């Protein structure tokens, strides 16, 4: 195992960020660490990249214990965090060349490697422009290139596409896939199920500092139950009759949220068929609905089926807004 994590714990004051986490990643494989904001993903990455000492438990990277041999670990890893660690007033080339020097590659090797990476990540034309002129997608690619300059055997990407527009996101996926094809062992954190599905060989779902599920993407999706038909009732009084009308149509009893009046029917692999049946049943029962949709399972559905609560529920209660990318606050991640 290139990454081995056993019983990892970390608290920040009273907040338990990690409460005994175990997982491992074999050589050349991609592990997706999936979870909502505040689940403990970034804390796990910070411990594995020697930025933070664990309170208890063990973590090793490439055979080295991260707490006892941090210097050896640092020579073998690359990290691209949530924020892009790029000096905006330096050019793309200067950013990479200096990173190479700081990995002790030597001047010539650092230059050569910087040029190679710029070409590989489609940044050769912008190589001698200051990074502040780059688009969000270009910055992420440059940041990823910087994390690769030291030829890491293990790469850590902490939410590599959070905050990117959909097109840059897909571009970033292509870059990461190509990288992984070259045999790099990768640990990737994400809030998006589709991202983990797209890139990971294995997914570890983490919530409240604990691993709540572990498996290949297909296994997880089967567990979630495929497509979801979702609609909202116009008046809350209509929630009960609506649930009654559709409850037998899905793979398991429909779920209704009394707060929002939103109803979910898990349709398995029969999405469109169930959609038609739901419409018919509601019409027959005389329930007026708004915003009906058929969608693929999301992180919310994974959480709903694994924990019985929505992924963003706890965040909402401590004042953070929803599921979207949130400014990273140091400490209690």
């Amino acid at each position, binding site marked *: *195992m*290139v990454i081995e994590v056993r019983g990892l714990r970390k608290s920040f004051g009273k907040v338990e960020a990690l409460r005994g986490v175990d997982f491992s990643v074999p*050589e050349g494989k991609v592990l997706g660490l999936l979870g909502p904001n505040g689940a403990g993903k970034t804390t796990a990455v*910070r411990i594995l*990249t*020697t*930025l933070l000492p664990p309170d208890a438990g063990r973590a*090793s990277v*490439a*055979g*080295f*214990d991260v707490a*006892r*041999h941090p*210097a*050896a670990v*640092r*020579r*073998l*890893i*690359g*990290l691209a*965090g*949530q*924020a*892009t*660690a*790029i*000096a905006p*007033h*330096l050019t793309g080339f*200067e950013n990479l060349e*200096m*990173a190479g*020097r*700081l*990995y*002790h590659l030597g001047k010539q090797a650092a230059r050569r490697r910087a040029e190679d990476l710029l070409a590989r990540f489609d940044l050769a034309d912008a190589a001698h422009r*200051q990074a502040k002129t780059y688009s969000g997608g270009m910055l992420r690619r440059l940041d990823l290139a*910087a*994390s690769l300059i*030291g030829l890491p*055997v293990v790469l*850590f990407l902490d939410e590599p596409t959070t905050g990117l527009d959909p097109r840059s996101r897909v571009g970033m996926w292509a870059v990461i896939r190509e990288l992984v094809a070259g045999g790099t062992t990768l640990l990737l954190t994400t809030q998006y199920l589709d991202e983990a599905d797209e890139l990971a060989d294995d997914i570890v779902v983490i919530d409240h500092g604990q691993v709540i599920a572990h498996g290949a993407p297909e296994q997880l999706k089967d567990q979630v139950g495929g497509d979801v038909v979702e609609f909202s009732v116009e008046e809350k009084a209509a929630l009960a009759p609506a649930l009654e009308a559709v409850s037998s149509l899905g793979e398991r009893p429909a779920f209704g949220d009394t707060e929002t009046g939103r109803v979910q029917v898990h349709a398995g692999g029969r999405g469109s068929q169930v959609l038609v049946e739901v419409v018919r049943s509601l019409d027959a029962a005389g329930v007026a609905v708004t915003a009906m949709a058929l969608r693929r399972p999301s992180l919310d559905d994974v959480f709903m089926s694994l924990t019985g609560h929505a992924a963003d529920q706890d965040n909402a209660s401590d004042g953070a807004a929803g599921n979207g990318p949130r400014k990273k606050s*140091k400490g209690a991640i």
Partner: protein
Amino acid sequence: MSAHEVLGAEVALGEGAGLPSVAARRPGPLTRARWAVEDTLVITKRNLLAWTRVPAYIFFTVVQPVMFTLLFRYVFGGAIHVPVPGGYVNYLVPGVIGQTAGFASFSTAIGLARELQTGGVDRIKSMPTARSAFLAGRLVADTLRLFVTIVVMVGVGYGVGFRFSGGAAGAVGMVLLATLLGLAVCTVSALIGLAVKDEESVQAFGLIWVFPLTFVSAAFVPIASMPSWLQGFARHQPFTVVINALRILALGNRVEVAVGQGLGSALWQSFAWTIGVIAVFVPLATRAYKRA
């Protein structure tokens, strides 16, 4: 696993992982010392390049002190009477240089807070880069920048009538002592930036402590002109002591009476303050960096 403990030995990596064993070789002390120097130079260059490319930085570090010089020389200077040969301009230039050394440290705090927020610190700490290099590179860059600023200010001072009269050694000594003062203030500022961590808070509060220290000092006006309750603080605080030494170095021993302190006394107090501050704040800032 115990093989990993053997310092300097080449050890096999995580059994069966098939990873390059060269990466696990722990370098000897000489190599590590060389890396510490090289890494510091790379980070120094990185900071200095950014400085030369941002007009606002150059404005803040060079143009603003020049404006202070002109302002006090031509606007306030006529109302301030000092018993210094050559008049107020000779009194002013060493003072405004001392003040500049205090203000220049602002960018140290800002720069460090920004790199904490943008992930630059996390990135470098996850790299095999020497642990001391990030902070050392920042301090070296800021000190070199201050040195350039001081030389520019001496040039501007010459343009408005300032003249060294303490000999070449005194002139060089003044520039170097002012630079040392700047380095000392930068170490305090480094701790502020790393402890506060938030760039906006640093923007708002990072400079407040420098204002009373530089203005309630002998930088611009003789301390005797201040109310008596303020004079005790003004006379003994570090900026005054260093500025006294700067004046005597620049203008010669004949201004010792006007300054109110002898060169020997001003110098040893200056060194005690600056080196003392550096000795206290470098370890504190290093600790804050490790914890950040």
